[in-house]
């Protein structure tokens, strides 16, 4: 069998289009000849790599259409980050108008790219960038650690601290000091990095630059770059070449050294490692939290058995009186640590977790970790009792990005006195589309003794408001309720309003006490991904 015939048969076999007679011939060859088996493995690996690569390409193109594809096995943390980047980036392109269709001006945001990943990164005081943030224009200083930025041109750069740099446009970055490694796709050829000694212009596909005092070093890892020195003639550098430049007449050609610069794959691995170590810290912390006597119910939105649709109340004392949650429609997705099947996506129509919370409560704290895709309903549910009966709480987010909390005090609004049935505690707007796809910790404290309601996002006080005397409810009741939705599930009318949260949750906790600002901050500090 000639190598070309061998390869043709192997491809036919992999494609499932091989006649039986040829299977037998191939099998005979494979049984005796390791070279044929080796060719088989090689072509099979190519096939799987192609599937994986092209799938990732399509997934990122479709990222705006559905977040559920992220739950696919094999999609790495980097893939999800890239998809987040796309979702955050898309609305800048202006192709998608505002979701509600009511606002007059199209939404805008500022930035030339997205910080898709960072490890041990410390930014200078005035910029505290988190993963998923848009990278602002203006000078930036990375004091330590590494950061990966995807520019809207398609260029991916990894910056190593200590570094000072500025993004002028998605095609133009200046480097005051430090190391930068850039991967430049075809669409972004001509990408420029400026340094004090000169400019590097990429002709495709990967290079790195190290800017030091009085000298710059350019390494061409793949493809070609042009070096435009401040003094002297333009030079062309090829893949594998590097150049140290100390002003005209003092240049030296070296061999490119990829290992001297952190690459995209390396940062990906480091991110996974640091994320898991944070997760372990949280597991330890939340084990103590479970034993907190004030904790009534605590659900982590994943089960050991992927087919079970029940969530155990893991509060040690609270589970005596509040039982399991029942999952309806919500789909299993990755939690804030990237673990598949440990969070619930409430975006499928009708999604909710049904719970029954018996008893009477005085002060309360509601706390959850959520990832919101968009606030495209008027009311976006967090935790609401069925209907809205006397003395019951409702906790949700309005479509303008404000948190909403209320406890019903009277049966109806009083037309003659103008007194409402309840007082609504609104926070200022905290959410806009730039937070889409980011995990947030949201908490609200109803403090009867302190006579105030406080809203929190990511451990910080968002707003605090006194409870008006005439609306104070000292004995709160909950009963049947839904996490992530609202309605009258026992109603015989099939019509219902759409209020399910368009997003995911991985934890929900309810305390029968008002937690302090410090306690909320502490929980966030240990639980942030």
């Amino acid at each position: 069998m000639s190598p070309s015939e061998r390869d043709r048969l192997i491809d036919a076999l992999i494609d499932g289009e091989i006649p039986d007679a040829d299977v037998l011939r191939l099998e005979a060859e494979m049984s005796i000849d390791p070279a044929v088996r080796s060719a088989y493995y090689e072509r099979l690996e190519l096939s799987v790599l192609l599937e994986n690569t092209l799938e990732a390409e399509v997934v990122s193109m479709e990222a705006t259409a559905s977040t559920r594809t992220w739950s696919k096995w094999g999609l790495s943390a980097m893939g999800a980050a890239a998809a987040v980047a796309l979702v955050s980036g898309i609305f800048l392109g202006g192709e998608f108008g505002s979701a509600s269709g009511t606002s007059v001006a199209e939404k805008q945001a500022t930035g030339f790219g997205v910080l898709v990943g960072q490890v041990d990164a410390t930014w200078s005081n005035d910029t505290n960038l988190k993963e998923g943030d848009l990278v602002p224009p203006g000078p930036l200083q990375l004091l330590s650690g590494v950061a990966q930025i995807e520019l809207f041109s398609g260029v991916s750069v990894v910056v190593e601290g200590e570094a000072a740099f500025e993004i002028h446009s998605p095609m133009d970055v200046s480097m005051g000091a430090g190391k930068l490694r850039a991967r430049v796709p075809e669409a972004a050829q001509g990408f420029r990095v400026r340094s004090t000694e000169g400019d590097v212009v990429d002709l495709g596909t990967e290079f790195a630059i190290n800017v030091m005092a009085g000298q710059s070093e350019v390494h061409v890892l793949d493809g070609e770059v042009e070096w435009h020195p401040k003094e002297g003639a333009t030079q062309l550098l090829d893949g594998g070449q590097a150049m140290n430049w100390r002003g005209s007449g003092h240049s030296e050609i070296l061999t490119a050294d990829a290992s001297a610069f952190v690459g995209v794959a390396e940062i990906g691995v480091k991110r996974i490692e640091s994320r898991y170590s944070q997760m372990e810290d949280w597991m330890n912390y939340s084990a103590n939290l479970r034993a907190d006597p004030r904790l009534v119910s605590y659900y982590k939105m994943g089960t050991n058995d992927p087919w079970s649709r029940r969530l155990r109340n893991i509060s040690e004392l609270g589970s005596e009186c509040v039982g399991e949650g029942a999952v309806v429609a919500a789909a299993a997705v990755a939690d804030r640590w990237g673990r598949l099947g440990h969070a619930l996506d409430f975006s499928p129509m009708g999604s909710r977790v049904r719970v029954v919370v018996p008893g009477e409560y005085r002060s309360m704290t509601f706390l959850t970790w959520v990832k919101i895709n968009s606030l495209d309903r008027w009311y976006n549910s967090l935790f609401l009792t069925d209907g809205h009966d006397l003395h019951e709480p409702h906790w949700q987010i309005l479509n303008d990005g404000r948190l909403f909390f209320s406890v019903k005090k009277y049966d109806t609004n009083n037309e003659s006195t103008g007194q409402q049935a309840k007082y609504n505690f609104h926070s200022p707007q905290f959410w806009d589309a730039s937070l889409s796809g980011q995990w947030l910790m949201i908490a609200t404290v109803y403090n009867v003794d302190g006579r105030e309601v406080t809203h929190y996002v990511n451990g910080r006080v968002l707003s605090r408001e006194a409870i008006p005397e005439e609306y104070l409810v000292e004995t709160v009741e909950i009963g049947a309720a839904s996490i992530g939705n609202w309605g009258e599930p026992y109603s015989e009318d099939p019509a219902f309003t759409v209020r399910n949260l368009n997003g995911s949750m991985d934890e929900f906790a309810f305390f029968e006490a008002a937690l302090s600002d410090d306690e909320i901050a502490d929980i966030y500090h240990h639980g942030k991904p």
Partner: protein
Amino acid sequence: MNGNKNESAVVEQLTELQLVLRVYVQSLLPGDSSAHDVTQQANSTIWRKRGDFEIGTNFKAWAFSIARYEVLNYRKQQARSARLGFSMELNETIAEEISTRSGELESRHDALQRCLESLKAKDRELLLHRYHSTATLQEFSHRTGRSVGGLKVTLHRLRSVLLNCISNRLEAEEGRV
């Protein structure tokens, strides 16, 4: 706490293993469109049995033994409608060789991405169609006005071109360090 450690270790290793696991299952079920489902089934079983995995032992070997079992299980179910497959002995050899193949899949993956960039747009489109779309080659043939036979030959040629490109790139990279 030990359980949690175990869990995160399994998640991490299982995520890393995804590509190799797919190669492993497909090598034993060549051309079978159910290979993907069998891989998922294996993932699900590995996840369910994660408590059995002992940290420090070879995760890949443990996961592959589960995948192997799932393949056999699937074959048993399909026995009646079975297409012609390899003999037991050959499958044994394949399973062993694939699981001990040196893992440079990651660097091949990177190289492949670069190699894809060097292809013509219409060739990339054909590959995208073949490896992602659910539509048949016939439909693609209608749409593009190219014959099915011609497309198959092109696909075969493209794979050979890509394999060549990958090995050249890897060699070049090794030479550079």
